[in-house]
């Protein structure tokens, strides 16, 4: 499988989602959208778990091309759309579940919060998302107060090994703690 784009995710994440699928039934037979799909990892994992219709969305055309090749390699069928999540205009809660590994906003502050806000508008059943553990309280408060979430819970805590991106990073790799969340949106 070809990999590309930024922010590789630990390969245990599909496994975590699979556990979540067993407990909540948010994926199998459902319409699942992968926000910021990159090379398609999460969307393809959802398809493997039996999602009936998967839509991967990314701004980057090269990532989408890789996602499309990966899908072909795995003989899976996913639907791709090139769009900036911030400008996504869908009519209401048209998908069941959104699953995403948003940019953390290291370079662009609050990028992950924008993704979350949009995800909670288009999903009717659940939103799975990864956010830095240091922002846990903020995320919970904002999701419940401002973003149409009925519930917000951390399913598990993971560690990301982020390769050195900036000169000011002293260590070769920085280890950051990341939460896998499950949000339930309020019904329309």
């Amino acid at each position, binding site marked *: 499988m070809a990999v590309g784009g930024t922010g590789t995710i630990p390969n245990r994440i599909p496994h975590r989602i699979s556990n979540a699928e067993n407990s909540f039934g948010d994926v199998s*037979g459902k319409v699942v959208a992968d926000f910021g799909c990159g090379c398609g990892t999460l969307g393809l994992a959802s398809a493997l778990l039996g999602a009936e219709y998967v839509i991967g969305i990314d701004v980057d055309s090269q990532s989408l091309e890789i996602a499309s090749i990966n899908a072909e390699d795995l003989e899976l069928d996913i*639907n791709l759309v*090139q769009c900036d999540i911030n400008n*996504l205009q869908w009519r209401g809660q048209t998908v069941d579940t959104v699953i995403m590994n948003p940019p953390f906003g290291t370079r662009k502050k609050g990028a992950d919060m924008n993704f979350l806000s949009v995800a909670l508008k288009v999903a009717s059943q659940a939103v799975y998302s990864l956010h830095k553990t240091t922002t846990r309280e903020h995320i919970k408060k904002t999701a419940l107060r401002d973003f149409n979430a009925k519930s917000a819970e951390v399913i598990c805590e993971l560690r990301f090994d982020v390769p050195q991106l900036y000169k000011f990073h002293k260590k070769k790799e920085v280890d950051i703690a990341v939460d896998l969340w499950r949000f339930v949106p309020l019904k329309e």
Partner: protein
Amino acid sequence: MRLLTHNMLSCNIKGVTNGFPLRLEVEKFVEKEVEFNSDFLKNMFVKIEWKALVNAARSMGYEELPEEADSSMLDSDEFLKKFHHALLELHLEEGALICPETGRRFPVNKGIPNMLLHEDEV
């Protein structure tokens, strides 16, 4: 791009209020068989804008969908088969999506609609 995806998209230009449904400009379309799942179709039916689906299917030459539909039709296998075909088996490969309000053209290449906006449209 399948017509289920088309049924979700609308023009996202700032200030546009009637950006749905996008009109299809078809240069090339393909048909791919997909496994039939009646439970999925029944769940989807309530979320679909029927008129938009009918017109989109027509622009690819598929005329079998009834003009109007209601949930009582979901008992008919014949209806479900047509709904299935229009929703999941027709793909716009090359062409464009046109905003009904502004006429803005969103290109579709290799089956992927490009909904990115220009700076002055955000």
